């Protein structure tokens, strides 16, 4: 369950990033997670929902974009997407591949909801 540690890092980083925007509501947090990272999305979502309780992220949605594994063959320089974890160049059969994508574990962006006027928070007719 390292997802709990990862979720903790996400909550801490996002809270630090939005500290300068105290009036904004945080609608969603958008992550980019590579297919090779061994992160279980449901466990991460669970960890996030638990750890964000009582913080500004309590009602924030976690959105996860899965990033496919892309490598470049060091032998023939071809770039291709790895399917089923088969790290073999489809052009020349070499196993000497350089990973370009698939290792990502990043907070890409957050969507904020900034009230237009402070008054709009008051109930209106």
């Amino acid at each position: 369950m390292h997802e709990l540690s990862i979720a903790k890092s996400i909550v801490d980083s996002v809270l630090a990033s939005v500290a300068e925007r105290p009036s904004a509501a945080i609608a969603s947090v958008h992550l980019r997670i590579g297919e090779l990272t061994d992160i279980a999305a449901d466990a991460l979502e669970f960890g996030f929902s638990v750890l964000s309780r009582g913080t500004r992220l309590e009602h924030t949605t976690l959105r996860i974009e899965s990033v496919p594994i892309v490598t470049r063959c060091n032998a023939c320089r071809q770039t291709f997407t790895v399917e089923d974890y088969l790290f073999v160049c489809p052009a020349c059969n070499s196993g000497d591949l350089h990973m370009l994508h698939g290792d990502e574990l990043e907070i890409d962006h957050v969507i904020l909801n900034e009230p237009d006027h402070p008054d709009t928070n008051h109930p209106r007719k």
Partner: protein
Amino acid sequence: MEERLNIQQKVLSENDRLAAEVRSRLHELRVLTLNLVSSPGSGKTSLLERTMRDIGNTVRIAVVAGDVQTENDARRITRAGGTVVRPIITNGKCHLDARMVLDVVANIDLHEADLLFIENVGNLVCPSSYDLGEDMKVVLISTTEGDDKPLKYPGMFRRSSAMVINKTDLLGLSDFDLQAVTRNALSINGRLHIMSLSCRTGDGLDNWYAWLRDRVDAKKRGEPVIDEHAG
């Protein structure tokens, strides 16, 4: 009003920063550092015990042992004669992180060490995301496990530079196929250096020791210890 705030930050950037600190400290000391990972029961502690007993008089070995709850593993290794052995009690955490390693590395004298083993928590999933500042990860599996293990844990086998297959004395007692595991591992990581051995009978250990010595020597000379294209 809805607004997008770009962050574009690695989730584990703080861990990576601490790992870089560990790495530069160990690089200055020219201590080869191996992050040893495996499932529970593959024989990490036995391999370390045996290695220290056999070559500990010529290669000065330090061990940082991460064990989930107890200091048992560290005690076993201490008895085998490790130069410096420090346990890390993870309090139930499923992996070591760079801060734990930095805390230990900052507080022990590694001037007398040639080789540092970081014995990670027995688990092939969680430790794979955490850089500890090692020169390389060495993944250990045993012949009592499935030979499809590399396919089940591609992340770890992809990130490792060497694979050690332990308990070759038990080959033939199960369906474990040495050729199949090699093929599976290489399909995930074509640059993986593969060694097989038995800590019980001593079969294959000379090969493992020669490989370790080569890397220790390269580190001492300030040369790369793994192929530059790896990863």
